[in-house]
Structure formats: structure tokens, C-alpha cells
């Protein structure tokens, strides 16, 4: 491309071109010329910061950032934030979305600074900040414009903190309070009274009672209500929803133990516009009244009734009345058999996702029927369907060209021939073959050669395949970013070394591979620069050379499991100090590491650790100041 052509393009044309590119291409784009780089820096709106050192430069380089993701940024703390506030070159006024998930070291002071700094803030994610409590909530409530707030697993957040947020940010549209175990009815009640614009509410796993549901039912605009596993809510509570929350479109009552079908019927009666009904593992049976009432739901798209006793005839009635269904979950519905499935296939030709896990009576015939009539099928879960054989997979390969996700975990009938058929689903992105003992190199070879788009592959305990199969996978599935090879006992260094070809690999599980040594790990470390998660538990034969290589090359490693590894003091110290992004480590049963080794290693990384698993006796052997520092930085230690 000659320079003249490029210079002929005006800046706004360049911006238009730039907008058509996907993120990896944009990376290349900005290397073309200064002009291109300028376009990139002006047009970029979202950024994910991997290292806190670059936070300032990146933010000042990209003035139009509206989405900032700090969730994987280690060492982010209050001081960093306050320095950010002092930096004039950084403009945060356009920032609308802020992801602080797992930013446990940012506490009230930092949050308040951030909230003041970003005037336009609308979305905030502080999920999994386990130390996040009322004070942090109060700090966050300064940002009055927040509309979406995710606070999952903010374990110390109580009603008081929630009240601060509710009163500070009364424009809240969406809030997720999953696992905020301190929240009670009072908090929910206040939320519902003050934030009338709420459209989405997640109160899963909370110990709230029917009173909360009564308050929730008064929300006029509520569309999505998630209340997974609320053990104290029963039918009396759900009755309130029959005449409440008129715009409800989606409700999830999965694993609400006390909820029965009768209250679901009343919800259905009150909300003919309902689109998603998720009632897995809470209803035991499908009654006639349920079937009659669900007919009224003409727009129902999702129906999850996993774990219920659904006879074939009721499944037929169900699907014949709700033909718009695209997502059906009937896992663990042990009564479901081929007849029901065939009827379902006939009725719901728009089906995109089907979960048949643990439906033991489903055979190839059902799969054939489904695949033949539901050509849009994208996701199929067949875990533990033992009657499924290569025949079923054959029709799957023939018809389901759009299949993206297939779960065949623990299906005894899957063999090499079956994998050959599956490999015809060329759009497959996620494939789970865990516990399929009958597959060998041959079958894996087919997958490796045809499924080039594969992103995730689970071969957990597939003891039948070895190095050759892995080599084929590594050659063929270049875009793999998640690979699970745990307990594939045949694998040796030769095979594992091939993994180095998978440049995009970020998540690798090599648990229990006794045959691999330092050489294999070194090869992986050299090749897979993007590795973020590595599980080496019970890889007893990896020596220090492997860990040295890991320490040297895998600078992006965020989470590592070294349990039962024969790592030495020095190697551990090296690992922990060199891996500057490591945040989550499991260090249980390291026989060769002394207490001093632990002390030094942890001191080296204590300012970035967020999660740590150690043997319980170490609690009293490690220095108390180390533990204090870890605690102060928001690191959570699990004593095993």
C-alpha cells in the first residue's frame, strides 16, 4: 500500500474504517502509522487495564474512554486511585462504565475518589470485592448517576450500605445483590421504595423472606427478577408477584426449595407477557393447571424446569402450546423419553438451546428428531445421557451446522467414530468430552483437524488419548483458549510440548499429569504467552526448571495452582516475585517448601494477591505482619 493512498484518506474516513475492525485487528492497525495510531487513540472507547503501571499513560493516551475495566489489574489500591485524581492529563469525565470486580484493595477512600472523579459514571461492577462493606457503599453512593450496579459477593455489605446506595443513586436501573448475605428484608424494602425505576434485580442466595417479595412486587418497571436459591421464600411470597411488577419478563426461581408449582402458576397467570421462566430444581411435578396456564404465555422463550417430573405427554402439551420456545432446560427430568423429545422437536423448531443432562432414557432417536427439525440449534447439553451412541452424533454432525456448544461429558457411547461425526459441526466453539473413556487419538485427531474454531475443549479424564491426539489438537485448533487435560494419564512431555503452538491459550489445566516434567512446562511457558490460568496440581514430576521457565515467560499468569508440586523454595520465590500479575494462588502440600520459603514468596507478591490457599498450620508459622499486609490488601486466605 503506497503512502499516497493512505494520505488521501481523511481522518473521518479512517475512523469509519477503524470502527469496522475487531479488537485484534485494531491492535495491528495502530502500528501502521502515526495517523492510524492517532485515530486509534481518539476512537477507542473501552479499555481493560492489565497492569496498574500503565493506568496513567493509557488513560491519558485514550481521552475518549467510556468503559474502563480494572477487574484483572493487580496492585490497584486507594493510593493509585488518588494519584489518578491528581493527574491532570487523565480525563475521566467521559467514563460511563467502570469494572472494579475483584479490586479488593480499593476501599472506601479510593472508591469515593473514583466516584467524584467520574461524573458521568453509569455502570459500576464491584462484584467479588469480598471486603466491600457499608463504608464502601457509602463512598460509591456519591456517584449519583449510577444506573447499573453489580455487587455480587460483597460479603460485608449490609442493609445500611445498601440504603446509602439506594438513597444516593435513586436512578438505579439494575442492581445485582447476589451473595450479599447480610442484606435483609429491610434493605430490599427500602430499595424497592426508593428506586422505582428498577428494571432488573438479582437477589439470589439472599436470606430474604416473603416480605421482600411483597416490596419487590410494587416495582412498576421490573423486568428481570433473579432469585436463585432463596431458601426462605415460599409460595405465599411469590403470590405477591401475581398482581405485582406488571412489566416482569424474566424470573428465575431456581433452587428456591420452598417454592412449588402453584405459585409459579399464579405468576404465569399475572404475567402473560413473560418471556423467560427459569424454575430449575424447585418444582417437582408439572401439573395440569400449570399446563393450562402456560398456554397463555405466547412469548415464552425460555423454560427451565430441570429436575421436575415431566411425563412425555405433558412435555407434548407444553411444547405444543409454547411454540416460541428457544431455550428448554429439562435436565434431570428422568421421565423424559424419546416420545416426548420427538414431540418437542416437532413443536419447537426454533429451538436454540436444549439441556438434556442426566435424562437417562433419551436415545439416538430423540437426538435425530431434534437435530433434524431444529436446525438452529446452537447449544446441546447431553451430559450423562448414556444411551447416546455414534448414531445420534451422526445426525448431529449432519444437520446441526450451527451448533456452537456441545456437552457430552460422561456419555459412555461417545467413541472415535462419534467424534468424527461431531467434527462435521465446523462452527463448534465449546466441546466437553470429559469422562468419555472410549475416545482415543483417532477421534481427537478428527476434532483437531476439522474444528478449527474451537475455543474450549474439555478432555477431563479422557485416559484413552495420548500425545499424538494432543499434537493434532495443537496443530488444528489454533484459537483454543481454554483446554482441560486433567488426569489424561497418557500424556507425556512430547505431547504437552505441542501445546506451545496454541498462542491464544489462556486457561490450561494439567492436573494429575504425572508424566510431564520441567521440559514440558517450559515449552508451554515459552509458547503460550497469554496464559492466565494454570493448574498444575499433582504434577509431581515437574522440577524447578519448569517453574523457572514459567516465572520467566508467563508474565500474564493470574491464577496458579501448585498443590502437591515439588517446587523448591527458590523456585516458589522466583515464581511469586516474577509473575507480576499473579493474584490467586493455591499453595497446599508443597513438600519441599519451608516456612521461610513461604514467607519470602508471599512477601514478594503480597501486594497483589487477592486469593490464597495455604495449609492451616502455616497460619501460626508465617509472620503476623505478612498476614496483616495480606489482609489489608484485601487478600482472602483459605486455610486448608
Amino acid at each position, binding site marked *: 500500500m503506497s503512502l499516497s493512498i493512505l494520505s488521501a484518506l481523511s481522518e473521518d474516513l479512517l475512523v469509519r474504517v477503524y470502527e469496522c475492525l475487531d479488537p485484534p485487528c485494531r491492535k495491528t492497525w495502530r502500528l501502521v502509522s502515526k495517523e492510524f495510531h492517532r485515530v486509534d487513540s481518539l476512537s477507542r472507547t473501552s479499555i481493560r487495564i492489565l497492569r496498574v503501571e500503565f493506568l496513567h499513560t493509557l488513560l491519558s493516551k485514550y481521552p475518549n474512554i467510556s468503559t474502563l475495566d480494572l477487574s484483572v489489574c493487580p496492585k490497584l489500591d486507594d493510593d493509585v486511585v488518588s494519584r489518578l485524581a491528581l493527574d491532570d492529563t487523565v480525563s475521566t469525565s467521559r467514563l460511563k462504565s467502570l469494572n472494579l470486580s475483584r479490586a479488593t484493595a480499593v476501599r472506601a*477512600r479510593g472508591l469515593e475518589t473514583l466516584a*467524584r472523579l467520574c461524573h458521568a459514571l453509569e455502570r459500576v461492577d464491584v462484584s467479588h470485592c469480598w471486603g466491600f462493606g*457499608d*463504608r464502601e457503599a*457509602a463512598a460509591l*453512593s*456519591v456517584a*449519583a448517576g449510577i444506573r447499573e450496579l453489580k455487587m455480587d459477593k460483597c460479603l460485608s455489605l449490609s*442493609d*445500611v*450500605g445498601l*440504603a*446509602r446506595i439506594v*438513597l*444516593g443513586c*435513586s436512578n438505579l436501573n439494575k442492581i445485582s445483590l447476589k451473595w450479599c448475605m447480610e442484606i435483609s428484608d*429491610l*434493605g430490599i*424494602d*427500602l430499595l424497592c*421504595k*426508593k428506586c422505582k425505576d428498577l428494571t432488573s434485580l438479582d437477589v439470589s442466595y439472599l436470606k430474604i423472606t416473603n416480605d421482600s417479595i411483597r416490596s419487590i412486587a410494587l416495582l412498576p418497571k421490573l423486568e428481570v427478577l433473579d432469585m436463585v436459591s432463596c431458601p426462605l421464600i415460599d409460595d405465599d411470597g411469590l403470590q405477591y408477584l401475581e398482581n405485582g411488577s406488571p412489566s416482569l419478563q424474566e424470573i428465575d426461581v431456581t433452587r428456591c426449595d420452598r417454592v412449588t408449582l402453584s405459585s409459579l402458576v399464579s405468576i404465569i397467570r399475572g404475567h402473560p407477557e413473560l418471556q423467560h421462566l427459569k424454575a430449575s430444581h424447585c418444582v417437582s411435578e408439572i401439573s395440569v393447571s400449570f399446563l393450562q396456564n402456560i398456554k397463555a404465555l405466547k412469548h415464552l422463550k425460555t423454560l427451565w424446569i430441570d429436575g421436575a417430573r415431566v411425563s412425555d405427554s405433558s412435555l407434548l402439551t407444553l411444547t405444543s402450546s409454547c411454540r416460541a420456545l428457544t431455550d428448554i432446560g429439562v435436565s434431570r427430568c428422568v421421565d423424559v423419553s424419546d416420545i416426548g423429545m420427538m414431540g418437542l422437536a416437532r413443536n419447537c423448531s426454533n429451538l436454540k438451546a436444549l439441556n438434556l443432562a442426566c435424562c437417562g432414557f433419551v436415545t439416538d432417536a430423540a437426538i435425530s428428531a431434534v437435530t433434524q427439525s431444529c436446525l438452529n440449534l446452537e447449544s446441546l447439553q447431553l451430559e450423562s445421557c448414556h444411551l447416546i451412541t455414534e448414531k445420534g452424533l451422526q445426525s448431529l454432525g449432519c444437520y446441526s451446522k450451527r451448533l456452537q456448544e456441545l456437552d457430552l461429558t460422561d456419555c459412555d457411547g461417545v467413541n472415535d467414530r462419534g467424534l468424527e461425526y461431531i467434527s462435521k459441526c465446523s462452527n463448534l466453539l465449546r466441546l466437553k468430552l470429559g469422562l468419555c473413556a472410549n475416545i482415543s487419538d483417532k477421534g481427537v485427531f478428527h476434532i483437531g483437524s476439522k474444528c478449527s474454531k474451537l475455543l474450549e475443549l474439555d478432555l477431563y479424564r479422557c485416559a484413552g488419548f495420548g500425545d499424538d491426539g494432543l499434537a493434532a489438537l495443537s496443530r488444528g485448533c489454533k484459537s483454543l483458549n481454554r483446554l482441560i487435560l486433567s488426569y489424561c494419564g497418557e500424556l507425556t512431555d512430547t505431547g504437552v510440548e505441542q501445546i506451545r503452538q496454541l498462542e491464544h491459550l489462556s486457561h490450561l489445566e494439567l492436573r494429575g499429569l504425572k508424566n510431564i516434567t520441567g521440559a514440558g512446562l517450559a515449552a508451554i511457558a515459552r509458547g503460550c504467552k497469554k496464559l492466565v490460568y494454570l493448574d498444575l496440581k499433582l504434577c509431581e514430576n515437574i522440577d524447578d526448571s519448569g517453574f523457572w521457565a514459567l516465572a520467566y515467560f508467563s508474565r500474564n499468569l493470574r491464577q496458579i495452582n501448585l498443590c502437591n508440586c515439588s517446587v523448591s523454595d527458590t523456585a516458589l520465590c522466583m515464581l511469586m516475585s516474577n509473575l507480576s500479575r499473579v493474584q490467586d494462588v493455591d499453595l497446599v502440600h508443597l513438600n519441599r517448601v519451608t516456612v521461610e520459603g513461604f514467607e519470602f514468596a508471599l512477601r514478594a507478591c503480597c501486594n497483589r494477591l487477592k486469593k490464597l490457599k495455604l495449609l492451616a498450620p502455616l497460619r501460626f508459622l508465617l509472620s503476623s505482619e505478612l498476614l496483616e499486609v495480606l489482609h489489608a490488601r484485601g487478600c482472602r486466605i483459605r486455610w486448608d
Partner: protein
Amino acid sequence: METEDDLCQNNWGNSSSSKLREPVCFTSQHKWEDASILDYEMGMEEEPALQVFDHMKASSGQEHNNNNNGGQVNVDFLQGVRAQAWDPRTMLSNLSFMEEKIHELQDLVHLIVGGGRQDQQQQQHITTDLTSIIIQLISTAGSLLPSVKHNMSTAPGSALFPYPREANNLASQTLNNNSNNNLAQDFDLPKPTIVQERESHVVEEHEMKDEDDVEEGENLPPGSYEILQLEKEEILAPHTHFCTICGKGFKRDANLRMHMRGHGDEYKTPAALAKPNKEAVPGSEPTLIKRYSCPFPGCKRNKDHKKFQPLKTILCVKNHYKRTHCDKSFTCSRCHTKKFSVIADLKTHEKHCGKNKWLCSCGTTFSRKDKLFGHITLFQGHTPAIPLEESKPSAQRGSSACENNTGMVGFNLGSANQESPQPGFMDGKMSFEESFSPLCFDTCNFGGFHEFPRPMFDDSESSFQMLISSACGFSPRNGGGGSVSNTSL
């Protein structure tokens, strides 16, 4: 004002102790005697009639004083007149009363005719007097109709007058103990002071806040109960029962009787030891329900208040008076901020002091989370404060402190100083300690969130300050205190 002293003498001369035991009996007797020594001599068999005449006295006396509370008095009077039974003798007395009144009227008219220059106020007085006398005339004339007959229990105003007053000091008490009722006449006085007192109430009525406990949903129709009013000194007296021999004081009558046993065998008889009020009025009229009035003028518990709510027992009177109209002299030894006037309240508070961990941004503490949440739901701009937050800007504390308890502070001072209008406190800056002190109603049975009578006056302003300093979680969108400020108790 001379009311205090006047009232002391002016009361109906009952000893408090006797009153407590047999108020109806005694008061009625006194009324008899009162009635008999009235200017308008009338023989009356029925009790209500007495009250009528007491009232007549009141209204006639009023005229001498040139007091202008005629309207209200006359209404009562009217009711009183209706209350009496038709009786030729009553009729006669009524007629003589009317005669008297006509003379008064004549005098007044003469005054108007020949008075010459009078200032406006005087003229006004005369006019009101005129009106009142004419109304009295009309109503008395109406009562002459033989068909008008009411019985006592249904007469709407029968119990309103006279308000039996209790002796307020030791002297009268002992006197009365010795000589049961003859002395009562000595205390009988011309009535005008009553009227005067009432007048002053009317004036002050509007300034008073009904800060009192709304303890009961009791809805006794006015007149279906008898109203007793103790005097301030008696309410505050540590002892109400005194030994006639050695003068020792007791809080309870039973204790006095136990004590009396030591003075001789005659006090050890079962009769002397028995509870006296049961057999004291054998065969007398069925006792009226007794309710109590607070002697504090303008108080909602005062009988002259428009929305008078009587107090149920003597204890209620004492607690009410101390809580509402007295200084809070007992300070909590733990927090050193909360003050109480009733020692029982202090004890109750001390039990829970320090446990009030639920704190609102306005500085108010709650012992229960749901109460706090109810509070913040009710008041816009209030947020729960996070305890032990050392970095709280002091500006918030200060302003919230003065915001929070204004009502309470006002009430506090209001009891000491009637003239101060409540809103005056709103802009006063309170210290942080003060903001806590008024919150001392742990023992009171407040329903809902009555602890916060009128905290919202300056709310908009303070939240605006918050917005500027953006120091705390005060919501900038707060719909103005106006809508909330009229939330009364």
C-alpha cells in the same frame, strides 16, 4: 400572672389524699356547700346543678373582671344550664338569676351610653360582656321550660365545671385530713380567676406543641368522666401521703397505713388498715370514671385545650408533667448526653444506652434497625450513617445535629419558656451533644416515628450544603422539607 396563687386559694378545698380516695364524694359535698353560699341561693338536690351554679358564678364573675372569654364560657354555661332538672325551686332561682343579669345588662348599657371616651379595647370588652350576658339570659330562660330535663351522665357539659382543684400544699392537706369538709368553704373564693386562667390558655394554645405521649386510643366522650387536676407543687411533691401524727411523708397510702400502726393500737384494726376508698362512699352515686388534667396552661393534657386528651392516672399525670414541663435533670451516666426528668426513664435508658447502634445521618440513634429504616424511608435526604466512621466531615455532623432534633429542642425549651416560637430554634446552631439530649423518650410509648416531630424545616438548606461540600450521602434530590414538615405527632 396571678393565676398560680389565685388558683391555690381558688381550688375547691379538697385535700389531695381524700380526693384520691373518694374524690366524687368530697367534691360533691363541697359543691353543695359552695352552692349554698352562692349569691344565688338555691336548693338543689342534684349534683349537676351545682356545677351549673359554679359555672354561673364563674360567668358572673367574669363580667366584673371585664374578661372577654365569653363565647366559650357561655357554651359551657349553656350546657350546664341544660343539665339541671326542672324544678320549681330551680326555676325560682333561675328567675332571680335572670333578674340579676338584667340589672347587669342595664348597668352595662348605661356605661356605654354615659361612658364617653373609651378606648377600643374597653369597648370590645363591654361588647363581649353584653353578648355573654344576653346569651346567658336566653339560655337560662330556655331552661325554664318544664320539659328540659337531662340526667347527669348524659349531660354533655356536666363534668366540665367546676374543675375540682386539689389542695396544693402540705398545709391544706393536713388541714383537710383533720377536718374533713367544713374547711372547704374557707377556700371558696370568687371565681373570676378561673376565667382569667382560661383566657391565658387560649392565647397560648397555638404556641404549644403536642409533644406528649399519645398513649391511649381512649375516646371517652367529653363529660362521661370526671376531671381532676392536681397542682404543680403536688405533682412534684416527693410524698403525697403524710402522717397526721409525726408528719412523715409517704408515696403510697398503703405505706402510710403501715406506718400508722406504730402510732397506736387504734391504727391496727382491720378497718384502719383497710383500703379506705371502697366503703367510703356507701350508697352514694355510682362513681364517675376519673381522668386527670395537666395543670400546665395550653398543654394538650390540660382540660382547656381544644383537643384535650385526659390522663388516665395520677402516675400518668406525674410522668407527663415531669417529662413535658420540667427540666431534665437526670443525665445518663454512660453517654452523658441524654437527659431525663423521670428517673425511671433514665433507668430504662441506661439499660439500653450504647446499644443504639443504628444511627441516621441526622444524628438520631435507634435501637432497632427497622426503626431506622422506617425513619429514612419517611424523611427524604436522611441516610443511615455508618458508625465509627472517623473521616466523616464535621460539617455534616453539625448541620445534621441542628437539623435533627429541632423539634425536640424546641419542645425542651418550650416547656421552660413559653414565649419562644418554635421556628426560632431552627436556625440556632446546636452543639453536637445537645442534639442527643432531647431524645429521651425511650420509655414513652411513642407510636411510629414521633421522635422526629418537625425536623425538616431546614432540611433543604442543609442538603444543599451537603451538595456543595458533597461530603456525605445526603441526597441532592430531596423534595424539600415542606411536604414532610407538617408531619406532626
